[in-house]
């Protein structure tokens, strides 16, 4: 590829203010295009986060007034000494770990099947079927799932009963409720992760596979020792993205379990929302800030390791 085949920002040597201004001017087209998105991100992304953190340091009763009372780290102390929040944090972490593992493993498996010869005939149909839940509105589909698991008129128990099997406790048991969220969110998200793997499978270096074939490696061995090592960047991206996504799980909880039964699915996002609903703005935003810090920490650690490793 020659130098003129692609566009890159103009770099002007020197670190003086004039040099910086010249650099901005030289790259003005870039900044013009970035500007609307930068403003949108600052106004609707960064400012609300800063405001939320600000509220976390104020007393709930005055948080929404013109002159809120600052209470330092009191809301954080209150939240971190709340056993319900600690339970909530642990159940969120457990849910995230289970969901990330299942989603990434299943997505990888599905992607490997979809690039194989057995799925080639209806590959578009399979991809569409997998990706459709990703683009379907969450609330509408979660309501359907909720009805499917209803104890009295749900399709799941009707099917189990007709097969002579014991009924499933659904959202009325702790384990059932937790499992339903895992399954529903798996159905909703796995298509996206599969798509990322499918895109990366197209980029594999065929010469490595051919070399392994010549060396007599079977299909499974090639997948394990040649394909998957090359897929590490996409595995890392999917794991990081899934971790962030599942730590923030909210909609499915609101629609399907309301955090129950007996707080079994009272994940941090939902708990913070309910605190907000009870006018405990300081505690709610303190919880949101703790969750934000956890998400940021996970992202930065993953980014650090991802940048350090040479995968190929």
């Amino acid at each position, binding site marked *: 590829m020659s130098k003129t085949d692609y566009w890159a920002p103009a770099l002007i040597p020197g670190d003086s203010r004039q040099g910086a201004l010249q650099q901005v001017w030289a790259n003005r087209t870039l900044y013009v295009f970035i500007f609307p998105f930068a403003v949108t991100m600052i106004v609707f992304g960064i400012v609300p986060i800063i405001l939320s953190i600000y509220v976390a340091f104020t007393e*709930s*009763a005055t948080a929404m007034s013109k002159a809120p009372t600052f209470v330092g780290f009191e809301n954080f102390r209150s939240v971190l000494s709340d056993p*319900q929040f600690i339970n909530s944090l642990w159940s969120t972490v457990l849910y995230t770990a289970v969901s990330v593992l299942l989603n990434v493993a299943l997505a990888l498996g599905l992607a490997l099947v979809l690039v194989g010869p057995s799925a080639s005939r209806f590959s578009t149909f399979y991809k569409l079927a997998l990706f459709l839940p990703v683009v379907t509105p969450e609330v509408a589909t979660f309501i359907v799932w909720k009805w499917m698991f*209803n*104890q*009295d*008129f749900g399709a799941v128990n009707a099917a189990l009963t007709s097969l002579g099997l014991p009924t499933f406790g*659904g*959202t*009325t048991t702790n384990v059932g409720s937790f499992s339903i969220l895992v399954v529903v969110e798996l159905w909703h998200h796995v298509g996206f992760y599969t798509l990322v793997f499918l895109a990366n499978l197209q980029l594999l270096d065929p010469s490595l596979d051919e070399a392994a074939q010549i060396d007599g490696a079977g299909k499974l061995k090639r997948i394990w020792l040649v394909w998957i090592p090359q897929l590490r960047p996409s595995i890392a991206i999917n794991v990081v993205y899934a971790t962030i996504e599942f730590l923030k799980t909210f909609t499915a909880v609101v629609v399907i*379990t*309301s*955090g*129950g*039964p*007996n*707080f079994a699915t009272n994940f941090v996002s939902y708990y913070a929302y*309910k605190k907000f*609903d*009870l*006018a*405990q703005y300081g505690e709610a935003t303190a919880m949101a800030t703790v969750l934000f810090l956890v998400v940021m920490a996970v992202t930065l650690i993953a980014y650090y390791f991802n940048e350090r490793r040479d995968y190929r």
Partner: protein
Amino acid sequence: MRIAKKFQEQDPGGAGKVYGFALQAGDPALFFQMVELFGYGAGLQHVVLDPDGNVVLDQPDNALALINQLKLYTDKYVAPETPQHTFVDMYQLIEGGRVGMFRVGDWNVMKWDREGLKGDYVIGPMPAMSADQQPHVVLQSMRSVAAPMEHDNAEVARKFMAFLLTKDAQKIFVKYLGSGIRNDLDENVSASQKFFLQPQSSLSNNDFLDSVYPWFPQVKEALFEKAMAAVANPPADWNAWVKATADDLRVTVEKLRK
């Protein structure tokens, strides 16, 4: 409880699986609303906290109202998903004909008097919590209307407020909201709606304690946590549980007052 049991066992409408009661308990506020409604029916204006901020949950009638409600869960007279039910979930059960009794506001009666649902619902006599109690009707969330002193059009506001109490204005309320505060509004309304315009039981008013105590939502939350734990693992002695819960709430209130 007796009627709930009978309805559940007999399923008079042939809907299949039915429940005696429809309740909502998806969050502390929803649950607390149900607790208060049970209290209102027993003539109690406040089940948990009195207007002076004292915990009154362990007074005999208050305790009975809460225990009776929680037993609906543990004795399975409500749908098993009720601890997660929101208002919408509760109404899906009601309008699906799957419950025998439910709370009702007169705005619903207006709807149920129309085609489609007409005749599907009846309003029976106001129940009492126990045989030795009288049934009660409580007007919840009483709202006053006021104009600020420094309002530019204070005189016009005063006239408007006076109009709100006239029969013509109240008839508009009845037409669109189903309720009114005069006792001469029962012309041209259905028999079921008339029930609400001519209460057969003693009438008292009530307003949210949230408007008095900014920390009251936290009391609701504390009660909700304890109640949901009791529903999940029913105590052997409900009265002892209420006493312990009331004592814990006193500690909570004491902390919140500071």
